[in-house]
């Protein structure tokens, strides 16, 4: 493991607004870092500084040991970057566009052809190579953007909202591509996203920032564990009339609270829906199941929940 990206006290101010506030972040080889945060939290600004597009107001960012302000070209050579919205030269064809990127990156002749072909294959662009980019669907445009970013097989890949605005199939393809690149090894990948399930699907580490500062840093699982719903049990029960279901469940050892999700009348017995929350997120499903069994309540469903990233996100970023 080595440190691919290191930011120290990285700060960006736009007038009186501090977009990124003394951000310290280290990304190791092999990590796929999900960069989360509300709109305006400073995700894109941070990425723009690391990639050398914006200069920091203060602080430093190093990529593969090179300081971005002092050696911008060395940093840019090592990074593949997909800017937000995947801007492309829309009057070019994907083939011509990727050829241009290859030339700027110093590739020519066979090396250029090989790199372009490999990027095309990885992003499955074969069918649209000779159409102007402006005529392509959003999914293909995004793939052209990704192809451009991975063309030179960079050690550091920075993707600003790579799946934003794509349909579920396209999102799946992009995520698969990211996982494949991570699996190939030797890279650091940083991606920003709003979609929390994405973090679970592709990231090894999740960093949440709010108002330009890191407010949470850990594995996606540890993030989920912060949810008040972690290890909670969702129930659909048909108890005999008059049973104080919520009170009984709330008295069980390890139960923090019972959330009423509404009762549906009808049939012999009404359907009681609730979520049983665990103290400190410790497993309670056995105790709950045992109690229900003893009391002989009818069970429509019973699932244990890992937790809701959305809740953690709101909890942490104070939305």
């Amino acid at each position: 493991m080595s440190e691919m990206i290191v930011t120290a006290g990285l700060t960006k101010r736009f007038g009186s607004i501090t977009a990124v506030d003394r951000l310290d972040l280290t990304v190791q080889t092999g990590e796929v870092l999900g960069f989360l945060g509300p709109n305006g939290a400073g995700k894109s600004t941070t990425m723009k500084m690391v990639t050398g597009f914006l200069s920091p107001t203060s602080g430093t960012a190093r990529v593969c040991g090179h300081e971005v302000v002092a050696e911008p070209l060395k940093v840019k050579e090592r990074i593949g970057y997909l800017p937000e919205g995947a801007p492309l030269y829309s009057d070019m064809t994907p083939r011509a566009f990727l050829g241009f990127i290859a030339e700027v990156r110093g590739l020519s002749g066979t090396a250029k052809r090989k790199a372009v072909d490999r990027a095309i294959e990885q992003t499955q662009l074969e069918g649209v190579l000779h159409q102007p980019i402006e005529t392509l669907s959003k999914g293909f445009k995004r793939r052209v953007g990704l192809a451009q970013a991975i063309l030179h097989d960079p050690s550091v890949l920075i993707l600003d909202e790579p799946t934003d605005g794509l349909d579920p199939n396209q999102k799946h393809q992009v995520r698969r591509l990211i996982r494949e690149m991570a699996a190939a090894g030797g890279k650091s990948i940083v991606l920003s996203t709003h979609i929390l399930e994405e973090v679970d699907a592709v990231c090894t580490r999740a960093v949440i920032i709010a108002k330009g500062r890191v407010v949470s840093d850990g594995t996606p699982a540890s993030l989920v564990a912060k949810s008040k719903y972690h290890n909670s049990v969702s129930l659909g029960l048909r108890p005999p009339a008059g049973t104080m279901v919520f009170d009984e469940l709330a008295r069980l050892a390890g139960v923090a609270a019972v959330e009423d999700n509404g009762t549906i009348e009808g049939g012999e017995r009404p359907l009681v829906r609730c979520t049983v929350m665990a103290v400190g997120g410790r497993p309670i499903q056995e105790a709950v199941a045992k109690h229900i069994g003893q009391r002989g309540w009818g069970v429509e469903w019973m699932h244990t929940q890992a937790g809701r990233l959305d809740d953690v996100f709101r909890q942490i970023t104070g939305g």
Partner: protein
Amino acid sequence: MLRGLRAVFLRELTGYFITPVAYVFIVIFLVMAGVFTFQLGRWFQAEQADLRAFFDAHPWLYLFLIPALSMRLWAEERKSGTIELLLTLPVSRSAAVIGKFLAAWAFAVLALTLTFPVWITVNYLGNPDNGVILASYLGSALMAGGFLAVGSLMSAITNSQVIAFILSLVACFAFLLAGYSPVLEFFQGWAPQGIVDAIAGFSFLTHFQTISRGELAARDLVFFGSVIGVFLGATGVVIEMKKGQ
């Protein structure tokens, strides 16, 4: 530096030809050059074996056509967001500025070269001084470069191509007028001769006219070189300043 510059130059130059821009520009340039020379310049009636009327039209042709060529240089990159892509590729800002400028210039010079039938005609009809004509072509190309550098800066200032066009037109107009006799006469009435000379000294018109008389003086070459250098430098500064917006 060079490989990035070369790639940007080639992309930009081919960019003119994948859209109708190139063809429209060239056709209009050639037609207008013809109109100015033969209709307004009364070249045939003058019965002079030179291309004075043809070259005299160039500054006024460029005034409208060059801003149309330069307006997209940076405004479009900013508007579409590709500027972020371009400036995070391993190409320095100056290489990008120069590469784009050179592509536009090469294109303008190509359009200028395509006026060669006029030169063939004058040689067929008479015995012109081809040295003067060559110098005039060179002067015209340099002047186009000057206009383009001004246009490059104006295009970097805004992300609207229309505004870039208008700003370039106004700026280029000022550079032309500074050497136009009625304007200079206006100043001569009250301003000291030194100031009048200084104003005339900044005019594209004055320097172009000197060159197109066949007097290829270092002073005029340096003038256009400096204009291009200063305006491209300013383009780089403006791009850096406006990146965060």
